[in-house]
Every structure is written in C-alpha cells, then in structure tokens.
C-alpha cells in the first residue's frame, strides 16, 4: 500500500489557539509547517471561549503585575502546578495579547483607549482582555487571518489515528481525510500536539464532538507520559434547560459583570462558604461585592468570583440539600443589577451579547429580565501530556504539546481566562522549540509496517459490520453515562473501581464497533475511531483519580474530602507499560525557587 505522504519540518496537530499560534511561530522561524485541523479552519473549540484572555496588562488596575498573576494561578491550582509554566505564562501573556492587537484583534477599550480588562474568578485584579463575551472568536479569527498569509499548509477535516515513532522519536502521523476517507501519512522532524480537551468523555459537557482527547491518547500510545489526569474542571455554570442545550456554557463573565447565584429560597448561598485561603480577598457583604464589580479598588470580590472548582461544589451542595432550582441546578441572576444601574438592560446586552442571544433563542429566557437556571458542566481538563515548562517538549524527543492537551500550567484547577493566555504563551513556545528541534534533527524514517498496522486497525469497524457488531454511538453514550455518574464531580473509591470494570467491558464493545456505508464522510466511522481515544483518556482519568486519595481543585473525593499536604508534593503520572497496561505513579514536583516562593507568600495577604 502506498499512501499520499506530506513532509514538513514541523507538523502541528490541531488548529485552535495553541495550534495556530505554534504554526505561526514555527513558520516565522523559517521552517516548513503543516497544520492539521480536525474540522474546518476557524471552527476549533477556542471559538467557544467567552470571557477573556488573562494577562497582567494593568490597564484597569495598576496594582496588577506578573507576580500577582503568577500567585493567583498557583493558588487557583492549589500549588501542584508546574511553577515554571505558571511563571512564564504570567510574564509573557501581556506581550502575547498586545501582539494580537498588532495582528488586527479589536478588544473592548478603556476610556483612555487601551485594552479593557474585566474581573474573573480567582484573579485578584481585573485582568481579562475581552471582546464582549466572544473573546475566543476574536482570538481564533485573528490568528487564522494572520496565519493564512504565512505560508502554512493547512489540511482541513483531517483526523489523526496514530502518532508514529522510530527509535523512540516522533516521526509523523497517519490519519484520514474526512471527505473521501483516504489515508495519508505526514512525516515531520517535530510534531506539536495542540488537540484540546476530552470533555466528550462525559455526558454533560460544554465541549464539541471534537473534544475526544485525541492528543492525550496519541501521545500516550506513543509512550509519552500523561500527568494530572484526575483534574477535570466542572464549570459551575452550564445551561440545564431545555434538555437539548444541557451543558452549553454560560460564561463566568456573567458573574464578572455582577451576576449572583441564588438557591430556591432566594438566598445568595456563596456567602455561606468562603474558603480560608480566600477569606482575606473576598467580600463578606453584598454591598462590597457590588462595589467590586463596579471597579471600586478598595472593595473585595464577591464570593461568586471564587474559583470554579469551589463554586461548582457549592452549587452541588445546594442541590443535594434540596435547595436547588426545579430542574436540578441553581439560579444565576444578572437581571437584578437593574436595581443598581439605570441602563441595566442595555448594559447586559452590550457586555454579554452572546449570552443574551443564547438564552433568548434556545431557552426562551430574557436574561435582562429573568434569572437563568444553571448547573455544572464538564468544561476543561487540567491534565495532559507532561512537558518541559520552557520548551513544551514531552518525554518523547520531537513530540511537543501545547494548550489544553498539555499539563502543568493549571495544576488542580484552572482560573477562567488562563486558557486563552496559555494557548498563546505555550503555543508560541511549542512552535519556537519545535522549529529549533527540526533544524537540529533531520527527519527520521517512518516505519511502513507501523503505517500499515495503523490503517488496518482504522478500517476494522467496516469489517466488524459483517459479524453484527456494536453501534458506536451507543457505546459512546454508555461511556459518557458511566464517566458522568462514576468519575464525575463527586468521587469515591468504590464507584471508581466500578468505573474501571465498566471501562474494560466498554473497551471490548468498542473493539466490536461496526459501521455501514463507505469511508466518505461517514460520522459512524469517525465515532468508532474517536471512541478509542476516549477510552484511553477515561482510563487515565479514573486511575489517576483513584491514586489521589484527597480532595484538591477539580478533584473531589467524598471518601477523602480534605486536602492532604503530602499530596501537594507530587503529581500523578500515567504511562503505557511495556506489556500494554496503564501504569500509575507519583512524580515528586521540583522545589519552587526561593524568589517565586516569596512572591506566593507576599501575595497571600
């Protein structure tokens, strides 16, 4: 079998913010760059990001600096972050945002004409550069429109099924193009994974069909290590009604603009449980909270703007205690600001246009008049490929990862707004170092036996059709149900052990997944192939979550509800053992240098 083969110096898999930024940087370094998108260019999940991009520009509050941003990120991640990444991220994100403006992005403005910044959960000062509530669209479109003039080869609607290695080094990928179902081989000196998240492992998620953990799984099967896979972010505010929109995100920007959370008794319950490590920075009355969102520098932030992991758990507690909304969530109310602002309705429509639109069209709710009903939704995975903080290279030479599919920057919980800045900072770094690697290392030869094996494996679902087989959609739904109920927001040992047993049987079913029709644009086939990635990622999540016998950030164990200091000294790493089984180990995190430690201490006041 001969396959169409493309050769690049740097091959980037994924064309969201991180992939585009990596491709632009590699191309600027003068190497040949190929960019693979699972969908059409500009449709990646980055487009969904709403609230903003976090960068200590200090345009709105001059007390902000990279040091405060660094300390906020570490505190939000509960100190299991890769501190080097948190440091680089805080230092470099302002330049990355300013660079977007030079490439044509049009952020909302301050009165004196600079980039406006808004409040967000866990950020001490207003820090999120934004465009209403469609910041992700602005970011991806700016990168896309800039990138297409940089000589990057874009391969749209192409899905990678296997990452190839020779002698332990990344050499390229095999995949299929969706339109005709033809297989192609990409050979490259360096490969950058920028494939985003894995939210599709859960039933209720804000992620699109693409979020099946492809990069996580491709890297794992190519012998790279995954880290922090137990840390999943359940965003506190997803839509819950009607059923067809369940899980769709409601931006944290609603709370940043003054939105409050209420239980069925009309009580603003977030005031009832403010964690000790945030008490000094959190308002203890409604008046002060309102002054904060209005920009009063002497006021402390309202408790609705505590970190996402905490807010999501508080919502779950209200529901459990029988104080939830009729459909099993709580109320998010922005309309109440009418009592405080003369032109509130217009203000809401201006600052939250797509939320207004989304609720109006999908739920018959006018958010300028009525509260929204919301509940937690699977939003983001903090875990990913373990990479070097400076270069973003994984433990596999020539294999890089950036953005959501890489681990480190976020620790146990990501702050809102730190994702878009992560994409830019580490996308750029991955592109830069991948280009450098490509210049220093000639491409290694691809093993044609591996290519053939990957292709044979990928067409199995068509062969399975002859013997009956399983409906891939049904297997995917079953997997999502199990992960949602057994490895969700609240976890226990016994349920997770059950999840492992379920995953074993789901794997057997997935191996029998059968599809009809031909290979041209066949979603049944795509679902069958994506299932394999989802199963790998689900197993890594479950095994890591079993290993972490404490509660921290996005990982909450009902059987170990407290944070345990000892567990703050290591990260959990999974990798494929020589026999093919999944290995779990604890990797001690390196000591933070004294100057960074000092910053963390100074900012605790």
């Amino acid at each position, binding site marked *: 079998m001969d396959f169409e083969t493309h050769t690049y110096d740097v091959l980037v898999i994924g064309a969201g913010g991180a992939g585009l930024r990596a491709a632009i940087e590699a191309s600027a370094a003068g190497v040949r760059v190929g960019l693979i998108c699972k969908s059409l260019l500009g449709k990646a999940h980055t487009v969904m990001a709403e609230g903003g991009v976090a960068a200590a520009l200090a345009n709105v509050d001059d007390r902000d600096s990279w040091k405060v941003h660094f300390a906020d990120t570490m505190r939000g991640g509960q100190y299991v972050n890769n501190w080097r990444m948190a440091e680089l991220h805080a230092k470099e994100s302002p330049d990355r945002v300013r660079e977007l403006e030079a490439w044509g992005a049009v952020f909302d403005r301050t009165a004196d004409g600079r980039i406006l910044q808004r409040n967000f959960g866990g950020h001490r000062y207003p820090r999120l550069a934004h465009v209403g509530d469609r910041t992700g669209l602005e970011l991806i479109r700016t990168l896309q429109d800039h990138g297409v003039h940089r000589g990057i080869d874009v391969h749209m609607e192409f899905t990678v099924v296997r990452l190839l290695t020779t002698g332990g080094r990344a050499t390229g990928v095999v995949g299929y193009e969706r339109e005709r179902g033809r297989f192609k081989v990409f050979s490259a000196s360096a490969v950058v994974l920028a494939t985003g998240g894995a939210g599709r492992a859960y039933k209720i998620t804000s992620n699109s069909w693409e979020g099946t953990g492809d990069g996580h799984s491709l890297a794992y099967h190519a012998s790279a290590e995954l880290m922090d896979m137990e840390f999943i972010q359940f965003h506190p505010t997803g839509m819950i009604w009607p059923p*067809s929109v369940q899980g769709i995100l409601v931006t944290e920007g609603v709370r940043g603009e003054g939105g409050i959370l209420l239980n069925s008794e009309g009580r603003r319950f977030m005031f009832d449980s403010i964690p000790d490590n945030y008490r000094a920075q959190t308002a203890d009355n409604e008046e002060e909270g309102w002054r904060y969102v209005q920009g009063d520098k002497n006021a402390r932030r309202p408790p609705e703007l505590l970190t996402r992991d905490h807010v999501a758990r508080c919502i779950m507690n209200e529901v459990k205690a029988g104080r939830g909304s009729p459909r099993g969530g709580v109320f998010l109310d922005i309309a109440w600001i009418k009592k405080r602002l003369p032109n509130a309705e217009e203000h809401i429509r201006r600052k939250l246009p797509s939320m207004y*639109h989304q609720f109006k069209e999908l739920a*018959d709710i006018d958010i300028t008049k009525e509260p929204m009903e919301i509940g937690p939704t699977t939003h983001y995975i903090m875990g990913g490929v373990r990479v070097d903080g400076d270069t973003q290279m994984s433990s596999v030479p020539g294999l890089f990862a950036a953005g959501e599919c890489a681990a480190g920057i976020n620790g146990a919980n990501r702050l809102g707004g730190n994702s878009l800045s992560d994409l830019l900072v580490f996308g750029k770094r991955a592109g830069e170092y991948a280009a450098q690697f490509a210049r220093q290392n000639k491409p290694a030869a691809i093993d044609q036996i591996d290519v053939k094996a990957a292709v044979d494996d990928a067409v199995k679902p068509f062969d399975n059709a002859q013997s009956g087989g399983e409906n891939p959609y049904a297997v995917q739904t079953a997997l999502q149900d199990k992960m949602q109920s057994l490895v969700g927001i609240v976890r226990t040992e016994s349920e997770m052990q059950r999840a492992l047993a379920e995953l074993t049987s789901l794997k057997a079913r997935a191996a029998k997944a059968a599809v009809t029709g031909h290979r041209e644009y066949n979603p049944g086939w795509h679902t069958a192939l994506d299932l394999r990635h989802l199963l790998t990622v689900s197993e890594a999540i479950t095994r890591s979550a079993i290993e972490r016998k404490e509660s921290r950030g996005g990982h909450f164990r009902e059987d170990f509800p407290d944070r345990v200091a000892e567990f703050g000294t290591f990260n959990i790493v999974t990798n494929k053992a020589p026999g093919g089984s999944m290995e779990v180990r604890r990797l001690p995190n390196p000591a933070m240098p004294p100057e960074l430690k000092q910053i963390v201490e100074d900012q605790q006041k």
Partner: protein
Amino acid sequence: MSDAMSRKTNATPTKTGAASSRTSATFRIWRSADDGGGFREYPVSLVPGMVVLDAVHQIQATQAPDLAVRWNCKAGKCGSCSAEINGSPKLMCMTRLSTLPMDEPVTVEPMRAFPLIKDLVTDVSSNFRVKKTIAPFRPRPADAPDGTWRMRQADVDRVQEFRKCIECFLCQDVCHVLREHKMHDQFIGPRFLTYAAALEMHPLDSVDRVAALKDQHGIGYCNITRCCTKVCPEHITITENAIIPLKERVVDQFYDPVKKLLRVFRT
C-alpha cells in the same frame, strides 16, 4: 425568591408547548447516493427545546449512522452547521423545532450554492481561497512608546459588529450573484465584503483596498437586495453597515467627477 423566578419556571413548558404537545415528527433529509441522491424520511421522537441539529443527531445515532453533517459547538458560535431548513438558510443548532410546523415533514437539505460533498455537507473551501486574496491587516505605527495603540470604543464599535461573523457562509449561500449566477470568479460575496469592511474601517489599518474591491472583488455586482443581511445568524447589518459604505468609498475614489478631473491633471 423573586416573582420573576417562579414565573419563569412555570412559563417555560407552555412556551415550548408547540413542540412538546407532540411526541414525534418526520424529517425529510437529503441523502447522497451513487445515482445523485434524494430526500429520505425519518421519524424523530421529540424532546423539549429540541433544535434541528438534535433531530439530525438522533437519526444518526439510531437510524442512519453514516448520515454526514458538519457541526461543532452546537451553540451558534462556530458557524459549522449551516443548511437549508424548509427552504430557509439557517444554522441547524439554533433552529428550534418550536419555530417550525411539526404537522408536516421538516425538510433539511445542504446549502445549494456550494458543491455537495455528501448528505448535508458541502464544499465551502472556495471561501478560504477568496479570503486569502484580500490584503491582510497592516497597522499604522504604534501610538505609544511601549508599542501599543489607543482606540476609542466608539471608533471600534462598527468594526466589532463585522468581527462577530462566525463564517457560517449562509450569506454566501443566499447571495443571488453566487447562488444563481455562479459568479464566484468575479465576486467575493457578502462574507468577504464584510471582512474587507472590517479591515477598511479598522482604526489602525493602513492598507487601501478600495481599488481591489472595485476591480478584483467585484463589489459592483452587489445590487443590495439585502438577502445576506436577512439570513445572518449574528444579525450583522451586512448591506447597510458594510457593503454600502464600501460602495460609497469606491464611488468617492473612482467616480467622483471632481476627483476624476483631478486625477487627469495629476497624470
């Protein structure tokens, strides 16, 4: 608890009642086949709040696993799931069944202005090629010593309207210059006139695209029938705010008699 809350929770079921009083509906979906294809009917069981894309997914999962459809965000933000629903160009994810008559089959077909790939999926690659022909953004020198610029919100409002575009290409689908007259080689279409407007009206941009709009991009072919504006799911006022001002710039630069005379003298 406020009055608004209790009202809302009571009111919602009746608002969606149009769809929820029925338990099933029929969808007529375009399916490709070796002989060219045709419409096929599928029964769908109804769920409150359902949108057309939900129905398509249900058919995929239970009856036609190889039914091709393009989608991503399912929240009206990515512009992937464009189709023609009962003859109207729309996003499948934002079209609620409660807005459609359920007592007759719902027809879902691919965008007709683009070559068909399979079922509901069309080849929209021409759009990506067209965009590349428009001169990219180039900013004026920075305003401040730190390399940054100053722009007032009032001066970026109109550009931000154009930048809301999610590139669903529904405007390209309905534009008769493209749809009926197939003038893809001579006319860039409403999406890219809006894109050009966003660049031209960008306070920092320093490139002049007016000559190109007239000569290469065929702005003159648009005879402002407003079809594009009517279908825009982002409610961008394409015709009035983007295309007409660009046409005015073309007239100003090339057809103003005084300027024309001045040009003659200059050359």
